[in-house]
């Protein structure tokens, strides 16, 4: 199946000379949830803005459902929803009116029943006649989502949807994303909460300094890059790693009280058993053993760190 969003060699340089994107290639499959991870200033928002038509690219092409985002902007923008990062709303409009406005702007006929359903889904219905400036930050975020859903987009961009949102609302948001996916909406979200990507994404893309460092299936990524670590706590500290343990590449930590061994859990043999027997042969007494799995966060930090 052809990807629903296809980005080819996309570049963007600003008049100031700053290059936000350096030749990005990215395919987004229909119906998936793709999380784009990257530090601030990595180019996430610039990329989304180009797909949505807010920023003009310097080079490259973007197609959405086979249509070019510049030449066939009417077709692409009708099926794209955008929830921006900033809480930009008209202060003096009511919740209902601003959502109805978004629907009209996208060329859809008024549909009060649909808007009521969206507002109820987002627990905003009892606030429908409230002026936007009287809403809390979390509610404004939900209004922005309601606006983007008002014209039933097929592709939804969520730019930092849970930035500054409390834990319970974040969980609500994740459930909403799940429901949308179930209804067939493709979702692209940017975040720098690794936990968020780990929780809801199917695939994860890492972007930094205007380049996509990798795009992988989440599980494959975790398995591929997810190193496990075995920490052996010794009863008596040692001054140096014993000769017998050198083939294992263990490292000595904490003044010689701990030995750390890294292994690949996806590998055929982890080497743990032979390491432990080598330890006892070397005459080292073991007090405790623990293993740790690297999280997406460690993977991310490692990747972004390499780029520096």
């Amino acid at each position: 199946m052809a990807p629903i969003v296809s980005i080819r060699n996309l570049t963007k340089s600003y008049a100031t000379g700053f290059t936000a994107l350096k030749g990005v290639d990215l395919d987004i499959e229909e119906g998936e949830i793709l999380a784009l991870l990257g530090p601030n200033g990595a180019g996430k928002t610039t990329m989304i803005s180009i797909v949505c038509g807010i920023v003009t690219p310097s080079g490259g092409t973007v197609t959405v459902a086979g249509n070019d985002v510049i030449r066939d902007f009417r077709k692409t923008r009708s099926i794209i929803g955008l929830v921006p990062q900033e809480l930009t709303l008209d202060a003096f409009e009511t919740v209902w009116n601003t959502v109805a406005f978004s629907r009209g702007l996208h060329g859809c006929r008024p549909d009060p029943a649909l808007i009521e359903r969206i507002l109820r889904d987002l627990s905003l219905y009892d606030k429908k006649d409230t002026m936007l400036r009287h809403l809390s930050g979390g509610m404004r975020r939900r209004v922005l989502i309601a606006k983007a859903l008002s014209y039933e987009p097929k592709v939804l961009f969520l730019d930092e949807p849970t930035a500054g949102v409390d834990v319970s609302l974040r969980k609500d948001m994740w459930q909403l994303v799940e429901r949308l996916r179930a209804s067939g909406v493709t979702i692209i979200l940017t975040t720098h909460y690794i936990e968020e990507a780990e929780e809801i994404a199917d695939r994860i893309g890492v972007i930094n300094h205007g380049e996509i460092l990798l795009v992988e299936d989440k599980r494959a990524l975790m398995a591929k890059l997810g190193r496990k670590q075995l920490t052996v706590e010794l009863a008596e500290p040692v001054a140096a790693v014993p000769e017998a343990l050198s083939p294992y590449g263990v490292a000595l930590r904490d003044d010689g009280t701990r030995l750390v061994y890294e292994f690949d859990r996806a590998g055929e043999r982890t080497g743990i058993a032979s390491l432990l027997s080598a330890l006892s042969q070397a005459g080292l007494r073991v007090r405790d053993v623990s293993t740790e799995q690297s999280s997406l966060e460690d993977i991310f930090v490692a990747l972004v760190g390499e780029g520096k």
Partner: protein
Amino acid sequence: MNLEAIRSIYMFEMARMRRTLLQSVVSPVITTSLYFVVFGAAIGSRMQEVEGVSYGAFIAPGLIMLTLLNQCIGNGSFGIYFPKFTGTIYEILSAPVSMIEIVIGYVGAAATKGLIVGAIILATASFFVDISIAHPFVMVLFFVLTAVSFSLFGFMIGIWAKDFEQLNLFPMLIIPPLVFLGGSFYSISMLPPFWQAVSHFNPVLYLVSGFRWSFYEIADVSPVVSFLTVLAFLAVCLAITAWIFKTGYKLKN
């Protein structure tokens, strides 16, 4: 053509007018009434007729123009500046709407508001002085063309302005002198020859003169020249607006 989008933008802007009824409608009516009290009743009663028309009636078209220009520039500029200022412009830029549709929505609403307020001022004026309209069709034509071109002009200012200071530059500092020196309150034939010549470089003179001709058939310049001036101004505004959208000037990076 995305007609729903045009309707949405238009209705959104008109709703803003309803919310600010006091400053949109009541304030210009009071201001104009004050002009009529001061110039029409107090000073005008001691003045001779100007070119066969009582002074109060003579200034009515100029006052309507003054209000129309201010309203159209103010509404046209604010309508597009405010989304830029708050950031809600993202929605307009990412919607399936073309430049033409955006302009029709914003400029149409600004012109409508200007026309409504202008009509109210005309009604207010007729309450103070006797007003006759010799050429109603020409009057409406001038009225509508001026409203559209100055709303478009306001729209351009709204896009160009980077802060509230620049936004207010035209309505506060440039339009009042042009209107006051454009023969709104006098016939330029009353001026010394040098200032008469200078006045011909003032575009507002042509507007006021043509508009007044449609009422009383008196004019400082030929109504045809006035009409062509308005059309030329409209054409220039359209061309600049087209360029703005083509290049994304101050709207898109």
